[in-house]
């Protein structure tokens, strides 16, 4: 259940940026979430909801921008969506795929008033 720690990270960043922009209410928080970020979104939403009670982010929506798991072959340079966690290059059959996207866990933007 590290989703509570993730929710705390989101709230910290959101409150920080809201304060910098003299916002009184946070309506929406845009998240960039990689396919292999290891976050269970239902549990994240549950944690977030209970965490924001009584803050200016109470009721804020989490908008998820999912990033596909993409790898690049170390041997032949081929780029591909990684299926079934198979990190062996489907093009050359030999090289290992390095992750170039899909581990993101970021706050992209806020909508504030």
């Amino acid at each position, binding site marked *: 259940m590290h989703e509570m*720690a993730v929710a705390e990270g989101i709230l910290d*960043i959101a409150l920080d940026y809201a304060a910098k922009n003299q916002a009184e209410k946070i309506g929406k928080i845009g998240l960039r979430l990689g396919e*292999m970020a290891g976050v269970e979104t239902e549990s994240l939403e549950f944690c977030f909801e209970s965490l924001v009670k009584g803050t200016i982010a109470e009721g804020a929506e989490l908008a998820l921008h999912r990033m596909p798991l993409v790898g690049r072959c170390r041997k032949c340079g081929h780029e591909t969506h990684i299926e079934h966690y198979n*990190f062996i290059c489907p093009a050359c059959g030999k090289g290992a795929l390095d992750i170039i996207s899909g581990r993101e*866990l970021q*706050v992209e*933007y*806020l909508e504030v008033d």
Partner: protein
Amino acid sequence: MEVQVMQDILGKNDRIAAENQALFADKKIFVLNLMGSPGSGKTTLLERTMAALKDELHMAVIEGDLFTTKDADRIAKYAVPVMQINTSGGCHLDAPMVQEVLSQLVLDRLDLLIVENVGNLVCPAEFNIGEDAKGVVLSITEGDDKPMKYPLVFKESSIVLLNKVDILPYTNFDMAAAREDIHTLHPDVKLVEVSCVQDTGLKDWYDWLRAKVRAKKG
């Protein structure tokens, strides 16, 4: 009004992890973050390792545990410095927790620091603590399907120890399938089959540690 942010959610942890890492680099200590389910044999592996390498390397251990000091007490019997972190229910160690106990460890002569993370195949893999490498212990009784069910921890780990091979004959664990899955997930991972109770296969693990310590010394 829309405000652009673009910040890593675990950025605060990563910043402290970088501070820990800088300290380990300065002191030339190889640090391993050891993960795995409860009962997979992490502490037993460390007991074996302390006994085998204590005349050769200066080692210390950090024990992460929910509430107790049981594992730390087991390690302390080997006359190796050991620090306890109790997470009081927290499912993983994070960089600030490790930073806090580092101030109480004498780092100057250390070669190797192993951190036994909280028993859990999910959460610890998400939190860097400033380690040089992660490792995971998977025991035979957990089943050969676990690598694909918990891919991140196997992806993040530089070494996988398949422990309790002594009881392979009494289980339906398919070693070939498990090795294949781990290789698919992480093609260049180091994989060792060990039995911590029968003391088999551990030489490969010790050699891996020795090589990592040597590389860190430069």
